[in-house]
């Protein structure tokens, strides 16, 4: 633990060895170490979670948060260090043992059976039965009580979980943790797939867990969320805990500098760029089933942001522009030409698309960096279908250097890279194909702060080079800082496009949640 406090003089509001007055620590992890082969995933990590408190666990990708939580939930065994749960040594031999001891994990991807009812899901694996027969009424009472405790007493127990929104599915998963009599609940980036108002509901639920005397560990990239829900924080960097303290008494700059280990000059670096000639025009573009009748025009050297709730049609707009989704109506003009609505034709016309789903769609995870970076344009290295692999490798080396990708070399498989470096490869691909219009869908999602700043700078640089960029994001601060104009989508329609300076987070949200078109 000493290492932890030594590095965080400014932030340690709780001294080691002295029990806090608020509550005794429910969970203490001390000097946890873990190695995978030659790499130290965790060098020396300590953290304390108290009953009735939310501990925010902060750190860039690769800082060791997931490894630490996998040790807590019994997936990995630590190489050194000790864990105490409610004053007793705790060393789970597997996930089941951890659950029995009262540690519950809520992951980004939920662990629910979509074809079972809410009741069945809540009691999955802990069914109440006699002689093998399920005791229905007892089960229903338990499930209803758990839901009521989370403020969702009205939810029908018989609904199939697959039909619920992601937000409600999360509630079911939390209710299951309650029924398992969890004492520590870990949320691993729970808001990444939630719409804005679901985030508020989730925070309500977390406050209820707090009120019920549970310890909550909350992992997130978003400092705003930590500010909203966290009581205390612990920052991990490179497998060490580098600081802890009260959220209320820390500034964002302090936390960010702890995360990245240096001062970040600017979170949103600006590169001067001038909009030029129009390059892309959407005319009453409608996809199947959304977007509906979207018209706008984009100029070279311009960054157009698209805001909106999840499901508002932002992703669908990009996919329809790129020819991945069918066009129902309307058309797309790229430099006076009308390319056919297929990805191949749109790529030839100068469009490039970076998917929001790096793992499932954006990159072929088991293929090498060079394969992924050049897949959309192999022509420069091929003659009559035969490739010059050496020339290709050289070109990819150039891109790795230009984008400052941390990798062993062009032959390294994608899945070995961190999220930020994977995203750089996805960007390298559209740059390599010399796209003139870049369609970027959540390009900074799941990426650490330092790399985000690099990507903003790159986007600005590309605009300065005369490329046109459409930047879809749920993270309004980056849209407001990076874009020239911002369009807001709601229910499949583009409600308004205005210069970024005329928007604020509040006006964007007001329009994004509005139902009727008059609001535009």
């Amino acid at each position, binding site marked *: 633990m000493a290492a932890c406090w030594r590095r965080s003089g400014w932030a340690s509001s709780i001294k080691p060895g002295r029990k806090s007055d608020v509550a005794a620590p429910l969970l203490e992890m001390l000097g946890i170490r873990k190695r995978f082969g*030659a790499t130290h995933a965790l060098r020396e990590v300590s953290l304390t979670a108290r009953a009735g408190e939310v501990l925010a666990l902060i750190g860039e990708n690769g800082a060791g948060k997931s490894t630490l939580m996998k040790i807590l939930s019994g997936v990995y065994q630590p190489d050194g260090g000790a864990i105490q749960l409610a004053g007793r040594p705790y060393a789970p031999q597997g996930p089941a043992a951890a659950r029995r001891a009262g540690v519950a994990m809520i992951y980004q991807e939920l662990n629910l059976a979509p074809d079972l009812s809410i009741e069945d899901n809540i009691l999955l694996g802990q069914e109440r039965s006699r002689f093998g027969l399920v005791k229905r009424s007892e089960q229903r009472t338990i499930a209803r009580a758990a839901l009521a405790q989370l403020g969702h007493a009205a939810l029908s127990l018989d609904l199939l979980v697959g039909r619920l929104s992601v937000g409600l599915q999360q509630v079911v998963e939390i209710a299951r943790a309650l029924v398992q009599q969890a004492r520590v609940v870990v949320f691993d980036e729970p808001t990444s797939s939630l719409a804005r108002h679901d985030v508020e509901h989730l925070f309500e639920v977390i406050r209820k867990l707090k009120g019920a005397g549970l310890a909550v560990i909350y992992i997130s990239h978003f400092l705003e969320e930590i500010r909203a829900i966290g009581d205390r924080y612990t920052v991990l960097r490179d497998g060490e805990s580098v600081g802890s303290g009260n959220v209320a008494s820390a500034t964002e700059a302090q936390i960010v500098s702890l995360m990245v280990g240096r001062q970040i000059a600017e979170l949103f670096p600006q590169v001067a760029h001038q909009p030029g000639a129009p390059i892309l025009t959407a005319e009453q573009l409608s996809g199947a089933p959304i977007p509906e009748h979207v018209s706008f025009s984009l100029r070279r050297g311009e960054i157009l942001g698209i805001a909106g709730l999840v499901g508002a049609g932002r992703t669908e707009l990009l996919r329809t522009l*790129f020819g*991945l989704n069918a066009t129902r109506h309307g058309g797309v003009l790229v430099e006076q030409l009308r390319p056919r609505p*297929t*990805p*191949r034709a*749109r*790529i*030839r016309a100068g469009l490039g*698309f970076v*998917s929001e789903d790096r793992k*499932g*769609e*954006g*990159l*072929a*995870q*088991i*293929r090498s960096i060079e*394969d*992924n970076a050049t*897949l*959309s344009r*192999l022509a420069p290295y*091929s003659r009559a*279908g*035969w*490739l010059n*692999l050496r020339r290709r490798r050289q070109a990819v080396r150039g891109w*790795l*250097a230009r984008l*400052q*990708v*941390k*990798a*062993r*070399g062009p032959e*390294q498989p994608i*899945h070995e890279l961190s999220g930020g470096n994977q995203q750089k490869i996805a960007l390298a*691909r559209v740059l390599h194909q010399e796209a003139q219009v870049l369609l970027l869908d959540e390009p900074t999602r799941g990426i650490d702060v330092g790399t985000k700043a690099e990507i903003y700078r790159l986007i600005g640089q590309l605009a300065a080079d005369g490329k046109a960029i459409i930047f879809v994001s749920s993270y309004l601060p980056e849209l407001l800082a990076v874009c020239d104009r911002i369009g807001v989508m709601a229910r499949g329609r583009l409600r308004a496009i205005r210069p970024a300076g005329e928007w604020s987070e509040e006006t964007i949200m007001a329009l994004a949640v509005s139902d009727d078109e008059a609001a535009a």
Partner: protein
Amino acid sequence: MIHLGSPSQRATARVGQLLSALGPLLALACVVLFFTAADAFYGGNTFGTVHNLRTIAVSTSGVAVAALGATVVIIAGGIDLSVGTALALCATVLAVGLRAGWCPWLAIAACIGTGCLAGCLNGILISVLDVGPFIVTLGTMSIYYGLSKLVADETTVRPLPAQVPQWLPDLLQIEPEPGWLLVSRGVWLAVLLAIALVCVLRYTVFGRHVFALGSNEATARLCGIRVSWTKIAVYTLAGFFAGIAGLYNFGRLTQGDPTSGRGVELIVIAAVVIGGASLNGGRGSVLGTLAGALIIRAITSGCTQLGLPNSYQDIVLGAIIIAAVVVDQLRQRRLE
């Protein structure tokens, strides 16, 4: 600013790659050594003889050629259950052509062309109907069986010896003539085809597209690859290899037998899987497939030499298939 990793890390990665590439070959060496030793102690000491090794190579070659096509299909993320009955159809067409007195080259062209057509039909059905390849080729497996019975008029087709060009059965001579060939022409043909396929997979745009398609179809689509055309090309190529495998089939039997291809698809797929390919697509190697095919034949031959009953061969083969899949799973898990 590029972080290249320490030399030792790079070396470790390279050794890992090498091991996974050579794994099937090592397994083959183990199988051969095991049977040579076991046979020396308990059997007639015939397993390790040049004659027996030549026999194994010759009897593997036909399956190996069909498995080359299946390798491409499986790397592209597909599966082809129809390869067995398709190659029997090709052999039957060849036999019918020869018996009808066609010029041998025309009959051979018809044989290979039938294979290409059968593969092409698989590809078209899979990409146009957008149905899983397992179901489509399960259907065409039956269709091609029915077609070959139709062509053969519900019997086996045996051309007169004079109608069969001598080099066709000679393709599978165990003791080659001239002796400096070491193994029969059929084995060399299979090796040449394998080398050609390695080059196509490694050094062509089409090869890159096949790997991309198998590792992530969504990515392939997003990169502007014409997914449907690539699939049709992949299955047609597999059909081409099935057509050549039909030549071997005919060369071995000197007759066209519609039933001779039944069950072959399982041996073909087993060879590819033992060779280290992943049924999830995106991974597989030609060298591995050849080793896989040889392993299967070496086990069959070894068990026979040891005087073990047929039943043991099947059990050992099954265990090896499962072991190969487990190895693949372990690799996948490491990936996550």
